[in-house]
């Protein structure tokens, strides 16, 4: 049995948290982001928690509350969860006022027990500290006046602005609002979301908003525009390691026996959801059973899914979306049938016909499903989604409630299916853990030049087979045949583009990357890389390579990619015949060893880029025109002297920089008429980067300059005004155009030769 690991030192008190702080795992960064909010501090004034379903946003807020509560003398934490049961905005606002005052007083008195039996508003006055009495009494009196006048608008605004009124009198608070999407269902004359956004935006009181990520921006219409003030905090399910730790901690806390194998399955099958993991462990505790084998776990899981807390929770979601029983039954049927069609999308009209709904009723149902991430709905098409527990629930629910099959049969089948699925789930997990991470690797492509042999298995075998790793590394360094990787702008799993690929390949073993080759962003330079990791114990043979080339080509065809590069990765590389095929198909092929070498090179490049802002770096912005390039030249002269460049080299650098500035001014149609320069000193070189906004340097000019340079012949009429780049290339050791979103960036390097 795994031993429980202590994650952090336990706090003295748990106030709102449902799990001990030391058992709350995987959320350190999120906790820190919330804890960093403080009145009058610089930086974001609030946080928007965009939470995946069942990812534990509420517990995050509760744990944050407890952390803040423990900070004596700091801002008072106030946690409030909106609830549909409030029915009206006014009732929700009243409850907010009550919660706010009670929690504030509890914190200032250091009396968390007050939260267990919250007093009424007037009773609160007996408990409030003398320094707070006056303003608390005033707020309560104002509220009672507005209430007696039946002025709903005034009541709502007064209640919601209580944190600002308290702050004005020196009582600072930090407001944690949970389930904010529920507020949109509250009746009333006021747009509650807008009211809260306005109040939050106009004060120094920090707010944390948490709720369904797909609804949050709808509910707070101005929130996207205020992302600099309300920083987004994206909360996903736990990573595998954290999910396992959570399972261990939850089992330990409840005294439930848990084997290592079951722990791993639990983390995988429940997809790292803190809610589902905790629920299953709690169900095991309630049933007085352990989780010491796959069978035990599946029994607990199925019982909970079909008749326990998890089942009730999922049912309540359906009830919320489709209250009438008949509609719910239809919805169950349609959802179940859609879930069976992996990756399939249906027109919204088809859903309307199958549900017997149209217009706003249909829209409400689809939007509800979308908000809960049970489907993806874009206004015209609907695609079924949802987690593994949700799909299990749908399947069983359909058989029980729609097909009216015997319960015992459904339970037995669900259990059997779970048992059959368990090894596959774990195998998939192991494959995922061992996968090369093609998507991440493709995403790192940023126009680097890499040795061609890393993408051509035949060349790599010829040159490096049987060679020591050191020799491989130096050989690769010395290679002159380089492949320029595209600039990748988007990388995703292949299944995201072409769902049928999921039938033949794990999601993380096939990836699609959209990008551009070295030239500017044009149709001609657009390219899509489709990469797949294929299984083969030995070198992959020609037949296998052909099958995969065909598959990837089919993906390209089905998705309408105009220009695709195929890249296959096999653990041991490819046979000679398979390599011939890859060459015929102009596809790249790599072994796992090549892939790792490539990955290491890209990471080094990435680190180098990250290190760019070094202390030996100078930046300068000059206006275009008025001979301002002379100022740049004078500056670079001073900088170059620091590195002891010879006078001749300094003059060369100066001239190259002058030409780069002229180029920027002449070609860019720059909107700000500025030239941005960066000078980086390294031990053996000076790197000068010159950039400007506006249009990029025309390809024709570049090509002309290069041709001119290559041919080495002068034709004064044709080439006289295209000499800048030629000069730069001649005077500097390395010259490279880097792509930027808007404009051109020229990077020039001069090496020190003493």
């Amino acid at each position: 049995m795994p031993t429980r690991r202590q994650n952090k030192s336990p706090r003295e008190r748990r106030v709102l948290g449902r799990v001990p702080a030391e058992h709350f795992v995987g959320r350190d960064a999120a906790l820190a982001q919330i804890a960093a909010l403080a009145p009058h501090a610089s930086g974001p004034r609030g946080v928007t928690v965009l939470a995946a379903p069942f990812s534990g946003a509420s517990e995050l807020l509760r744990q944050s509350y407890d952390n803040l509560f423990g900070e004596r003398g700091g801002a008072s934490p106030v946690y409030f969860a909106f609830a549909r049961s409030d029915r009206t905005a006014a009732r929700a606002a009243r409850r907010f006022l009550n919660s706010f005052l009670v929690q504030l007083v509890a914190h200032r008195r250091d009396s968390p027990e007050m939260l267990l039996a919250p007093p009424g508003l007037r009773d609160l006055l007996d408990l409030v500290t003398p320094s707070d009495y006056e303003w608390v009494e005033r707020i309560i009196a104002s509220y009672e006046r507005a209430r007696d006048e039946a002025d709903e608008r005034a009541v709502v605004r007064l209640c919601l602005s209580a944190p600002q009124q308290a702050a004005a009198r020196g009582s600072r608070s930090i407001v944690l609002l949970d389930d904010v999407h529920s507020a949109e269902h509250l009746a009333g004359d006021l747009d509650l979301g807008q009211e809260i956004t306005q109040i939050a935006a106009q004060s120094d009181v920090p707010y944390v908003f948490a709720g369904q990520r797909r609804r949050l921006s709808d509910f707070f219409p101005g929130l996207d525009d205020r992302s600099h003030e309300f920083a987004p905090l994206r909360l996903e399910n736990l990573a595998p390691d954290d999910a396992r730790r959570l399972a261990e901690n939850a089992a330990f806390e409840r005294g439930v026996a848990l084997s290592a194998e079951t722990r791993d399955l639990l983390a995988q099958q429940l997809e790292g959801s803190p809610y589902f993991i905790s629920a299953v462990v709690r169900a095991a505790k309630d049933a007085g059973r352990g989780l010491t084998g796959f069978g035990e776990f599946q029994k607990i899981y199925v019982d909970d899914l079909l008749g326990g807390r998890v089942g009730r929770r999922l049912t309540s979601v359906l009830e919320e979306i489709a209250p009438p029983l008949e509609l719910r039954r239809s919805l169950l049927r349609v959802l179940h049938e859609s879930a069976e069609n992996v990756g399939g999308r249906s027109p919204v009209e088809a859903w309307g016909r199958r549900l017997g709904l149209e217009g706003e009723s249909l829209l409400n149902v689809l939007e509800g499903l979308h908000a809960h991430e049970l489907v993806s709905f874009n206004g015209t098409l609907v695609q079924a989604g949802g987690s593994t527990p949700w799909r299990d629930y749908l399947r069983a629910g359909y058989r029980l409630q729609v097909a009216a099959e015997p319960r015992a049969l459904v339970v037995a089948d669900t259990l059997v299916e779970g048992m059959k699925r368990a090894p596959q789930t774990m195998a998939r997990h192991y494959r995922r853990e061992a996968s090369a991470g093609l998507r991440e690797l493709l995403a790192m492509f940023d126009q680097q030049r890499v040795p061609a042999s890393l993408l051509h298995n035949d060349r790599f075998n010829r040159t490096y087979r049987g060679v020591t790793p050191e020799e491989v590394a130096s050989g690769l360094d010395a290679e002159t045949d380089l492949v320029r990787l595209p600039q990748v702008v988007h990388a995703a799993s292949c299944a995201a583009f072409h769902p049928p690929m999921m039938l033949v390949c794990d999601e993380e073993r096939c990836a699609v990357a959209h990008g551009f080759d070295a030239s500017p962003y044009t149709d001609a330079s657009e390219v899509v890389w489709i990469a797949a990791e294929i299984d083969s114990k030995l070198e992959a043979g020609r037949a296998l390579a052909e099958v995969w080339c065909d598959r990837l080509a089919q993906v390209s065809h089905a998705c309408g990619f105009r220009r695709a590069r195929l890249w296959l990765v096999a653990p041991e590389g490819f046979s000679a015949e398979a390599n011939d095929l890859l060459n015929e198909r102009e596809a790249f092929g790599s072994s796992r060893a090549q892939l790792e070498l490539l990955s290491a090179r890209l990471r080094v490049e990435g680190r180098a880029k990250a290190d760019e802002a070094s202390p030996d770096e100078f930046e300068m912005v000059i206006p275009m025109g008025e001979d301002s390039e002379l100022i740049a030249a004078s500056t670079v002269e001073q900088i170059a002297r620091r590195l002891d460049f010879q006078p001749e080299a300094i003059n060369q650098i100066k001239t190259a920089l002058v030409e780069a500035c002229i180029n920027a001014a002449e070609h860019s149609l720059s909107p700000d008429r500025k030239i941005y320069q960066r000078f980086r000193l390294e031990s053996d070189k000076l790197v000068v980067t010159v950039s400007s906004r506006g249009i990029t340097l025309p390809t024709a000019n570049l090509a002309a300059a290069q041709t001119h340079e290559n041919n080495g012949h002068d034709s004064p009429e044709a080439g006289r005004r295209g000499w800048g780049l030629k000069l730069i290339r001649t005077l500097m050791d390395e010259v490279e155009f880097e792509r930027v979103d808007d404009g051109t960036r020229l990077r020039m390097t001069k090496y020190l030769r003493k």
Partner: protein
Amino acid sequence: MTDTPAGQTPEGRGCPAAVVYAGGYVNKLDARRLERECRLKLGEGCRALVINFRDTELVNSIGVSILLDVIDAAERAGARVVFSNVNQHNLQLFEMLGLTKHAAVADSEEAALDALRSSSAASVSGH
């Protein structure tokens, strides 16, 4: 920048050689000024031009392209062009961009004028 007043040449009006002085930074503006002066001299009948770069620290590519225009104009007028007092870096630049194929280079203004005075073009160090 040292400038030679228009119409003044070392040899006087109608003489075969004139000297014009480039500025500290031969960019578009300065090169256009040089071009104007040179065309004026050619129009006055000068058949030899000395462009003195004694004050010139930097020349940019636009300046070079205009200097080539000057050389073209001189060739059309049957005149010769000699660059003098060119520093090492600018000389390298001129060679790189092919200027020295069309204009001779002398170490000093005197050397340039001496060369032009002599009837033989070989006395001027050509490139």
